[in-house]
């Protein structure tokens, strides 16, 4: 695997909600390409049949009882909000899909 394209970096930046200037796009494309080129040693390995490890150890069925605990004070929570109104978090208009 090699060659990360400028368009791919632009697409990934959009998915991550990041804006890149033309210069940044150039720099990041080059830098990310280097890291991925280094990762090429993984692609050459034959790992068929090797199970993936998403977790370093094997715990399972960790659950908590369904008992109500304390919630936060809404005033304290909303005091940290960049914008709030009427006990709720306020955001500017949402373009795109309708729900």
């Amino acid at each position, binding site marked *: 695997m090699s060659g990360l394209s400028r368009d791919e970096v632009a697409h990934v930046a959009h998915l*991550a909600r*990041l804006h890149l200037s033309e210069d940044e796009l150039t720099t990041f494309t080059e830098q990310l390409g*280097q*890291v991925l080129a*280094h990762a090429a040693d993984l692609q050459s390995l034959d*790992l068929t049949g090797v199970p*993936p490890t998403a977790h370093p*150890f094997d715990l399972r069925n960790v659950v908590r009882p369904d008992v109500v605990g304390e919630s936060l004070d809404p005033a304290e929570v909303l005091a940290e909000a960049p914008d709030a109104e009427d006990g709720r978090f306020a955001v500017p208009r949402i373009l795109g899909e309708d729900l």
Partner: protein
Amino acid sequence: MNAIDLAARVRRGEVTASTALAESLSAIDARNDELNVFLHVDRDGAEARARAVDDAVAAGRDPGPLAGVPVALKDNLCTRGVPTTASSRILEGWRPPYTATVVERLVAAGAVPVGKTNLDEFAMGSSTETSAFGPTRNPLDPERVPGGSSGGSAASVAAGMASLALGSDTGGSIRQPAALCGIVGVKPTYGLVSRYGLIAFASSLDQIGPFARSVADAALCLEVIAGHDPRDTTSLPEPAPSLVSHLDDGVAGRRVGLVSELVEGADADVVAQVERAAAALEAAGARVVRLSIPELRLGLSAYYLIAPAEASSNLARYDGVRYGRRVAADELGAMNEATRTLGFGDEVKRRIMLGTYALSAGYYDAYYGQALKVRTRMIEAFRQAYEQVDLLLGATAPSVAFRFGEKTANPLAMYLSDVFTIPTNLAGEAAVSVPFGTGAAGLPIGVQLLGPGRSEARLLAAARVLEVAS
């Protein structure tokens, strides 16, 4: 003064917590402007805690094993009402409404948190140079980095501003700065210490651990913060292990593997100290064998796919809606984008994009999926090694503390600073960096002891042997 002696004297009423705090604060006042160690000093909170400890002693109550010990907290640990930034503009001014489990445990043990220390932004870096609030300087040579990402915490202990500090280690972020600042740093087994309240970088790799000026202090601090926490699903089910009582167990009869991949490419002065450490362990009764674990060479590549992938998701929540900074725009998507674009630094953006790419449709199997399989191989390789030996030995970092700007131009060069520490995180195992001799420019060198999961007592006893021999 070291933490164990200080706590003992505070508990006996020979010195007050308030006096110890005053000394800590005066050390901070003397050098913080120069070194940029603390982003926030919580004087009022610390003074109140110190008074509470002194009141307890006066009333005949035991304030706990860390009575009156000033501790520094990496600023990615949440502290209720106290600014917590992860060294990022995007969280500037945020005051969490809750406190991390480890901080609660320190306070319950009588410790006095003095403030929040600088780090690489969201713990992504190896020098603290990616902090949005300027780099921390190494107290031993202010022209050089303290390492990272927990550079501020390492520097606070090295500069005598705190007796203990907490850091977080995702790929070496405790051990590498400990090595570069000449102190002890422990990366505990994954799950030994609760992550509740630790601002996540890469959830399956992150682990909180202590910095200390002695192995015994590190052991005591780890005993206090370790143990099951019901608020962290990945927390190991058992209570904290007994560590201090095993410090003098020594290494007689232990088999130690000196791993060629853990010194490969390191500077000559570093290699020399690792060899000397091997000899010291042998002299103390250990049997040292030379091993090769080729899988460790794959660690860096796997790490720089797995950690950014998890980070890209963990950092999605910083969008200007609920907390932290918002850059205004007349439409939600534009607001999210402007906030993140101005709120994150370049290293964070690089990793978010790398991780987003590694997880995206069409590339998942080739990158992220493959990296998870490498992780399986790494765990298996360690397991096989631990069938032959009890501990592994290697370097912590490839070099002594480097100068500012030396590695910032090339991200890959910076990433290589973590090449010896990353495998432990991928395997979820334990490792300690202990200062052992000096190298270029008279700067400290750290050697690394690695063990399987839950081997902290064994590791710290071996580290103690090296501490004495050093």
